[in-house]
């Protein structure tokens, strides 16, 4: 589709230098970019409810990617994995989180440790670092284009920024869950034909996270009457 106006030889040279991505590679990259954009969206969201919604959308994107890979590369186990992770991350975790929010006084995410603009700038810098650093390493997956691995790394690092600058329990938990999404993305890129063992590993991680976060946030909420971590300053030194 590129360069219909160019002479025939030019097109061939162009195509040789920059082979057009296949439909599969292109759609995979699009989904990976979406995941990263949604991660950035979480910074912008002040309402915790919307933040949870963004997390659900991000998880859905990951599941879609798993389905794309399953179909294109003929890895039937991935369908099961996609279904399970969709059930868990698109439905159960967000529902639990929302239930937790009900009755809490803090509907709005507490302002972060930094202002919004500086936070986003920091996240962009960190994300770009992850993207390009991994790009230079030359570790290629067998199933997905290399770009997606850099994007996965960027998601992980940006999730760290989210966890660090936010000062309420829900945002920190969401930050952690989206970090897991980044790891899942990396796993899909590198190890899509992974033995079931790796699939178990990252589903299991989420299950565990749900249990612990579920219990802890509840305990926390019950005691402190607020979801802010501003009061969690007794232990230091």
């Amino acid at each position, binding site marked *: 589709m590129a360069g219909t106006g160019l002479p025939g030889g030019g097109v061939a040279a162009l195509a040789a230098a920059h082979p057009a991505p296949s439909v599969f590679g292109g759609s995979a990259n699009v989904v990976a970019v979406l995941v990263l954009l949604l991660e950035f969206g979480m910074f912008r969201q002040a309402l915790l409810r919307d933040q949870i919604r963004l997390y659900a959308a991000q998880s859905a994107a990951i599941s879609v990617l798993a389905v794309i890979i399953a179909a294109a590369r003929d890895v039937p186990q991935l369908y099961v994995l996609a279904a399970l992770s969709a059930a868990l991350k698109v439905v159960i975790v967000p529902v639990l989180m929302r239930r937790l929010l009900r009755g809490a006084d803090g509907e709005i995410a507490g302002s972060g440790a930094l202002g919004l603009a500086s936070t986003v700038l920091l996240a962009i810098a960190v994300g770009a670092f992850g993207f390009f650093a991994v790009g230079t390493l030359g*570790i290629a*997956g067998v199933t997905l284009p290399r770009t997606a691995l850099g994007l996965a790394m960027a998601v*992980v690092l940006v999730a760290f920024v989210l966890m660090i600058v936010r000062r309420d329990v829900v945002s920190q938990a969401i930050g952690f869950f989206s970090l897991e999404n980044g790891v899942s993305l990396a796993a899909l890129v590198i190890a899509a034909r992974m033995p079931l063992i*790796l699939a178990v590993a990252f589903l299991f991680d989420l299950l565990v996270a749900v249990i612990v976060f579920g219990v802890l946030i509840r305990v926390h909420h019950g005691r402190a009457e607020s979801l802010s971590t501003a009061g969690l300053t007794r232990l230091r030194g």
Partner: protein
Amino acid sequence: MFIILLAVPPAAALACLKAPVRACQAVSIGAGLASFASVIALVPAAARHDLTVGRYLRADAVSVVFLLATSFLYAAVAAYSVGYFRGEEGSAGFARYARRFYAGLNVFAWSMLAAPLLSSLALLWIAVEVTTVISALLVAIEDTDRAVEAAWKYVLIASAGLGLALLATIFMYAAGAHVLGQSYDLGFTGLMRAGPRLPHTAVRLAFGLAVLGFGTKVGLFPVHTWLPDAHAEAPTPVSALLSGSLLAVSFYAILRYYQVSVTALGPRFPQAVLLAFGIASLLLAALYLFGQRNLKRLLAYSSVEHMGILAIGVSFGAPIALAGVLLHVLAHAAAKGNAFMGAGVLVRKYHTKRIAAVGGGLDLLPWSGPLLLVAVLALSAMPPFGIFRSEFQIVAGGFAASRNAAAAVLIVAVTVAFLGLSLSANRMLLAPGTGRLPRGEPSAWMVVPVLAGVAVLVLLGVHPPADLAALLARGAAELRGLA
């Protein structure tokens, strides 16, 4: 033996959910002793060859060393907690609390016994994750504001660290997939056999992420921040297990990545990474030991110090240093278990964790006072205790490997740490007390396990049994990729 180790603790945990508290206590002590006995039975065999059961269970000398540390503390702590709860039996909700506590204790011990028995890096990661979940719930079990705060920090920081460790697992998988094909079980023996052919960049990335990720749970600087909080706020028996055993199990995971990386990359890069983290942790902890006002935080920073020593010892790479590292794991488990159990007695006696509020411990506690002093001396590497021997070996290995500067830093930092620890111990035990508390021990149950720990420390320091020495030598050879 594998079956006893993997089946008895969960069975004990199930029993504890229903049984009366006294039965829970008996069952837990029984499970602890059974585990310890079966690990000891594994020692002679593991000192000669690897043991494998099925595809996913495997124990070599390195795993058995870590199993010994965990199972010893499991038995000791199960006995100790009988005394720890003495006097609270009548209070409201105690039975429910104690059942949850004992069930959690047994599952926690089980997860830490399972981790060194698994042959695959992916399964190892799952086991370490399970230890995090259970221990976080145990940290929060007292349900005070401070305990919940500590548990929240612990979960968040440790889970994020384990997220990185999972990335490390994935990159290691990618490295192995180049050689071993797309579907293999990520077993580290296979990875080590394929070692020289693994792509360097991916292994390097995996090792760095593994040290950072699992290092979060080991308590390496700068990702140690959850550690003092969790250790200080958990019930004392759990603190002893966290410090003596949980940190070691996470270090075990790093050792497995180290083994693979050494065969793939040669020793230079992995040793440099461990040296950097080890020195930083050791220096930080040695300095923090001075400013501590809370008894259990003091001991927690001492754990950071000793984990730093382990990392430095591995980075030396000399056989004597590696044997010293494995011995250090055992001796640190016994010494730190003792120190926390002794600290628990002080806390029980004085009803405070503040160092400044405690005084005259030697007079008031005829057994636990001297025993805590012994534990502090043992932690500071005084002869004739095991840590003296292990640190001596590590330093000797440093000089043998011509790492003179690092060995010198190690000696200086350990001396500084000794000063910090002994100042506080002096304040609590030798300085005259102000209160008018009666002289006497809260419970004999809180003394007997500590005596056992002292016996182990002296045994390790004076004359390690021949089988154990063979086990440590083989473990050191395995770490160098020779066995």
